């Protein structure tokens, strides 16, 4: 942090931020709609969110990959922006805050992976 010429490690977090931001921009709104209002609005049949349909979807390799990408990347996108916003509003948070904010994404990613593995193939 003290040497302004040191190589920044931001590329890792910036790429995750960008990928998550793009995915959320493309699909985020529709995902919220389908999950929360798909059935009530009548767009989706009632069985769309049934236990069997969702287990089948999460059991499929592609379904698993999709769910994992969405949850993990949305987290990484969000924490990167939130961390920079803290800086923007004058909270020049150091390493502990960084660990705390990005940590939620890391833990979220791990839990998502564990849940998807537990669901099995």
């Amino acid at each position, binding site marked *: 942090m003290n040497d302004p010429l040191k190589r920044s490690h931001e590329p890792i977090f910036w790429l995750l931020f960008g990928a998550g931001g793009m995915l959320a921009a493309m699909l985020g709104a529709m995902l919220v709609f389908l999950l929360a209002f798909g059935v009530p609005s009548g767009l989706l049949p009632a069985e769309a969110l049934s236990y069997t349909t969702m287990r089948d*979807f999460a059991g499929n390799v592609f379904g698993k990959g999709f769910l994992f990408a969405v949850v993990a990347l949305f987290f990484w996108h*969000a924490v990167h*922006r939130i961390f920079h916003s803290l800086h923007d509003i004058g909270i020049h948070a150091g390493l502990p805050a960084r660990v705390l904010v990005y940590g939620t994404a890391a833990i979220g990613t791990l839990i998502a992976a564990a849940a998807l593995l537990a669901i099995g193939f």
Partner: protein
Amino acid sequence: MSARRPYIRPMARWYLRDPFFIEYMAHEGTAVFVWLFALELLAGLVCLALGEAAWNGFLAWLDWLPAQIANGLVLLMLLYHGITWFLILPRTIPPVRIGHARLPGWVLSAAGMMAMIAASAVLATGAWLLARGGL
């Protein structure tokens, strides 16, 4: 002795200085809602892994009125995120050239928003087909 005494103006509340900055903070703020939605999806995944009873609990949460209101807000914020993401896209991606000419920014933004609509339609169709018993 030098009479120089450069004055450095404070940065406090800079984001209220210009409407451009207020909009910037607003679209950066959507990240909080993306985070909340990721958390909601994660909770759903965990419930799904725990079994049918837990999953039905998650469905009950989705039906609960306060949760519906919260999800309505999340929906608006993700929509705003999508629109603003594509509005700044011309600044963030390498220029697209057709022959010599650089495509104007609004073309890239419009293409992005069109892709957003198309991808959302594909997703909705996929979900519908899935509910009907497979693709």
